[in-house]
């Protein structure tokens, strides 16, 4: 399946992905409702976007007591709004921290790959977010590890 491949070295922290995501998901330009989140590393000298890796287990999906999270046509774990009751079990079951809860609608929400045309990938001006036929992996681990290494070294000095 096609997944979001993140190339953190290319991210400039412009946050266009968050804007595009929130617009696609909610109809509003509200980064607070984005399910891709750009984080600063090494004291705001570098950035990287982070979102659901569409893991094989689907901890959110198997935990849901009412079967409200399913696998969409493009292979994304997707919340069925009409079925979700907002019990938040998925938010505690997902070990990636990529489940969200909307207090306005009282529903859980998450990355559903925009049905196969991810707005974040399209909006990214530096191709830090790609939508490709690859096996999902830990796109940020090595990058963050190195950046964190620098920061910890500086703190130690």
């Amino acid at each position, binding site marked *: 399946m096609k997944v979001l491949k993140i190339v953190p070295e290319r991210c400039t922290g412009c946050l266009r992905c968050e804007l595009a995501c929130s617009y696609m998901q909610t109809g509003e330009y509200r980064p607070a409702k984005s399910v891709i989140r750009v984080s600063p590393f090494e004291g705001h000298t570098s950035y990287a976007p982070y979102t659901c890796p569409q893991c094989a287990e689907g901890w959110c*999906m*198997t935990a849901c007591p009412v*079967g409200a999270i399913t696998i969409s046509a493009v292979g994304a774990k997707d919340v069925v709004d009409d079925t979700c009751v907002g019990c938040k079990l998925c938010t*505690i*079951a997902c*070990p990636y921290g990529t489940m969200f809860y909307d207090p306005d609608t009282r529903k859980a929400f998450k990355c559903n790959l925009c049905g196969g045309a991810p707005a974040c990938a399209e909006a990214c001006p530096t191709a830090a977010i790609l939508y490709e036929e690859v096996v999902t992996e*830990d796109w940020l681990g090595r990058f963050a590890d190195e950046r964190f290494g620098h920061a910890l070294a500086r703190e130690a000095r």
Partner: protein
Amino acid sequence: MPRRHLIIGGGTAGMNAMRTIRTEESEPSEITLVSTEKPYSRMVLPYYLDRSIAESHVYTATAKVLAGWGVKIHLGRRATALDTGANRCTLDDGTTIEYDDCLIATGSSPVRAPVPGADGRGVHSFWTLDQAKGVLGEITPGSHVVMVGAGFIAFTILNSILALGATLTIVEIAPRILPRMVDDTGAGLVASWLTRNGVSIHTGAELVTIDELGGGNSRRDSRGRTRLRFAKGADLLADVVIMATGIRTNLEWLKDSGIVIERGIRVDGHLRSSVPNVYAAGDVAEGRDLVTGAPAVHAIEPTAQEHGRVAGANMAGKSVTYKGSLLMNIVEVCHLDVASFGAWDDTKAEATTGLQPERPAYRKLLWRGDRLIGAIILGPSSQIWTTNDIGMLKGLVQSGAPAGRFKERLGRNPFDIKPAYIASRTTTMLLPETVLGRPAKAPDDTPVAV
């Protein structure tokens, strides 16, 4: 002859086991389900109580779906004895069922405080669907609801009671609320948050009797109220009393079965009891704790689900070893998220905390060496980082990622979980992990039996 599976209990564990048997088996088998109630999800009853979902929404499988899975059902029946020598189960109507393998998933029942009047007409438990219906009809705007007990179960329906326009008083015999979910600091924050939101909390309140008013035969006065009397302090008058004073696992019926029972039915990594063709799952099972490695009873929804799936896969002929269950709970009260994981109450662990009383927000991280073994997290549910941090803390505890070099930093600021989570390569450790050794299937993707 096809293999005969007997599932005793139609809750989360039993349902997941049946679904997994149908997904994993290589040859068609017979499944018989014994269930006292139509299968439904207890997790969603609070949303039925506040009328945000209809009754039809609570059921996890309709008769049609079960028929599609080829499940033969003894509905409204209770198992009363298990003869593990003869592979035979006896039901309360005298029916006997023979099996090749069997899953015990009989769950728990609510326990009421042992005080006079606890069985009165105005006193409710909130555990089963029928009990939820009983409470639903009683609460109207302006009702005074008294909740006896301040544990997790009580707190799951707190928002619903307030949403129905009732006023709420919580009475708890212990000196603090949520004793099995958060520490004293967390409990204090939740208590003051609830007080600010108009909920009265009486801790250290020893209930003595629940009795009638006006001296008549009825336990209630002309308004239908009930009086609660305490060892110390003023009486309370309640329109509705809800007893949430704990649960007890349904195991008495197994006392002559020969199955080894400690705090629950001892199960191995395949969810097998001491009798090899008898499995146990969910609240009744005492299986491996992922964090401590020791046997533990985790009477929580995610454990019932994982136990049920692993037991089902093994009953279907696969060999699936369970890594162990992670204790976790989350409840939202008046837009405050309260969650805890793993060994959150381990007094021997190295603990660091962070407190922001004005938000309010609280974090407690518990370490053993390099590894995070437990956490407590409180924060406003409107702030997405509360939700995201809840998941990342779960991931750190679940994966056991070596995060020791961030310990000092997280000790200074336990509100900045994400960089440490990512840099510890937690995702690398988690991505290959699946409960059944294969990608999970969507909930509606269960083969129909032929």
